[in-house]
């Protein structure tokens, strides 16, 4: 199936350091890049060469289940790359050709990669069910990096990468606007709690550098306010940084060089504010990129690194939390459950914050992706994202009635409201786990006059 993905223009690609390849050189350059990637990462050849085509991964992939398109079967998706790889890089493919599933590079090759590598959320669920642990998400990310180097990358991602590289956040806001938004949120906090709760920016000599998703300044601000309340309550010395106001790292999703460059900013920003500890906010792939890729991308990382939900869990005994009278569930972001092992922490917090916590099935490391992962949040992909989220919507439907779905990931937060509306469950509220912490934290005065779920979820 062709997807309506808008690709970046040449000028824009140059801004992130990509020189698009001329039509005539596409084939040779593709093969060159594949060769480079093969020598770069073991996973590439091992995963491509080990697949037996057993099909066990088919039913594991929400993308295939939702679209019913053969090439969205993980092994078939990877197969689009595998057949070219076989033809030019394996003994059998070179000698036996078609017989061993090899195919020549052709005019449609790259188009098929674009179409199917961008219908994958890189959720890694397939790797859980493949007998060899073949992670098609990993192959897809490799394929996307190769496509980007050839000059084919989504306009949406290139734009975000440009913002990350120039301003240090996805939205592209600069320091004055950051300070503005933070004081606005401080006012909100004052109004709500009657307390002077600060959201410091670039405060020197601070212990903790906090990296939220930049979207929290505008749309998911309850998450950031939850963090601010928490730090206030615990008396933590923390700050945001105008150099890096972002947990996300889109480079991971389409260009490893951008990933490396943006990842390095964590050191720069932490050094700039003199922090000992970097705490990451609610962002799925961002946490995976930070935790799992920092060392590989830029060498030894000389700071402590932890996730805000780990920090909350550690301090749970110190927190005075009232349980909110709501029925809530937790969606495990793929990059937490499978990608970074952040699984029990959000649960412990949920149990402490809500009266009726219920699990969806499957959950934890077997959870289905919501369809918003892997950087597929561009508008033009909305319709396809709804198909990708079909499995998730059915999981949610089985839990109705439900007041709240906790989504500790900025991509999930963008996808869920659309998904729920699309499948007729628009009445269910969504937001972060920190949002709940912020609401159930008893700061100074009793906040317990609230009795209905609407009250405690803020209208």
């Amino acid at each position, binding site marked *: 199936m062709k997807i309506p993905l808008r690709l970046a223009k040449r000028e824009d690609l140059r801004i992130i350091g990509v020189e698009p390849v001329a039509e005539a050189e596409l084939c040779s350059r593709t093969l060159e890049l594949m060769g480079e990637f093969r020598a770069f990462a073991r996973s590439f050849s091992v995963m491509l060469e080990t697949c037996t085509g057993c099909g066990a991964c088919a039913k594991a992939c929400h993308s295939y289940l939702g679209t019913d398109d053969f090439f969205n079967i993980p092994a078939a998706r990877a197969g689009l790359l595998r057949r070219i790889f076989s033809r030019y890089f394996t003994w059998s493919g070179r000698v036996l050709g078609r017989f061993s599933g090899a195919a020549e590079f052709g005019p449609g090759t790259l188009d098929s990669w674009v179409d199917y590598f961008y219908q994958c959320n890189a959720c890694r669920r397939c790797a859980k069910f493949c007998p060899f642990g073949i992670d098609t998400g990993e192959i897809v990310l490799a394929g996307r990096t190769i496509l980007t180097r050839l000059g084919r990358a989504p306009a949406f991602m290139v734009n975000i990468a440009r913002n990350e*590289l120039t301003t240090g956040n996805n939205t592209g806001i600069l320091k004055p606007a950051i300070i503005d938004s933070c004081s606005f949120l401080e006012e909100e906090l004052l109004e709500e709690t009657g307390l002077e709760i600060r959201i410091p920016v670039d405060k020197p000599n601070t212990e903790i550098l906090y990296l939220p998703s930049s979207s929290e300044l505008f749309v998911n601000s309850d998450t950031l306010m939850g963090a601010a309340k928490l730090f206030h309550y615990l008396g933590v010395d923390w700050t945001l940084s105008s150099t890096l106001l972002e947990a996300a790292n889109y480079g991971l999703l389409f260009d490893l060089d951008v990933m490396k460059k943006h990842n390095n900013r964590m050191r720069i920003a932490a*050094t700039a504010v003199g922090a000992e500890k970097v705490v990451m906010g609610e962002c799925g792939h961002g946490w995976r990129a930070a935790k799992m890729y920092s*060392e590989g991308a830029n060498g030894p990382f000389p700071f402590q690194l932890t996730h805000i939900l780990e920090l909350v869990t550690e301090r749970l005994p110190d927190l005075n939390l009232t349980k909110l009278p709501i029925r809530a569930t937790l969606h495990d972001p793929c990059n937490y459950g499978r990608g970074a092992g952040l699984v029990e922490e959000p649960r412990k917090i949920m149990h402490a914050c809500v009266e009726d916590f219920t699990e969806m099935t499957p959950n934890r490391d077997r959870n289905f992706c919501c369809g918003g992962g892997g950087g597929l949040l561009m508008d033009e992909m909305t319709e396809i994202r709804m198909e990708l989220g079909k499995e998730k919507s059915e999981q949610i439907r089985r839990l109705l009635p439900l007041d709240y779905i906790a989504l500790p990931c900025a991509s999930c937060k963008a996808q869920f409201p659309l998904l729920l509306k699309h499948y007729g469950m628009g009445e269910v509220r969504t937001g972060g786990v920190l949002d709940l912490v912020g609401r159930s934290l008893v700061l100074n005065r009793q906040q317990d006059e609230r009795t209905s779920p609407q009250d405690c979820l803020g209208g």
Partner: protein
Amino acid sequence: MGIILGMALPYVAFSVFVVGTLLRIVGWMRIPVPFHLTLFPVPEDKAGSVRELVLEFVLCRSIYREDRLLWLWVWLFHVSLLMIVCGHVLGIYFLRQQFTLVGLSSETSQTLSVLLGGVAGAMMTLSLGALLCRRLFRREVRGLSEPDHYFELILLLAISVTGIAMYLPGLHAELPEVRAYMAGLLLLDPVPLPRSSPFFVHFLLVNLLMLYFPFSRLLHSAGFFVNRAMLAEAPPVYPTPDRSRPRSDFSSRKIHPDIPCPMNVADKEAGSK
């Protein structure tokens, strides 16, 4: 002809099998793993990881979770394969007297050996047949199948069928003759092939399998370990301990000096930290 097939081919096939497989594995292992690809949850310690790996290898738990029927056939096939390989070594070396070692009588050992071999052979043929049917009739799997997928299954089927054929009266291969022949091969003093047509075909096919193995998807047996070892790696700890070695040259690689990053100056400072 007989000399080439009976005396030269086995050596060639076996060398290709061993050297080719090793080369493929070494080829993989020489490539760095630039990032932690840990697929969570992972056990806390090395012993736990090894236990997980062994359990997965022995029981194929991932398939069991998703597709019980596939698991059944896959598992049956691999177990029968193991039985048959062991059975060949023991049965031929001891001329079916291997069970006398555990105190059974000569006749019982003979019968038991024949019986076990027969059962394993039947299991293998049956499971291969089922896997072939699955490839042919399941929409998804059929789409994923290339000609060589069928070729591999049919080759294995042919080997197991010719193996079973030797149970039939008249097609019987004389075990002492086979033993003498194998001994000749192993002692680098080859003697002519035994005169039994199923044995001849069976033996040729096995040689073909060995020749083909390193280039085929059957190498998944090695890929299993290489791949799973990456997924089972312990996650990194921060701050990074001093003793850690660079994972690859990516961490020190200079990239795109022209990426417009106003932070470039600060970049250098942090780099020298």
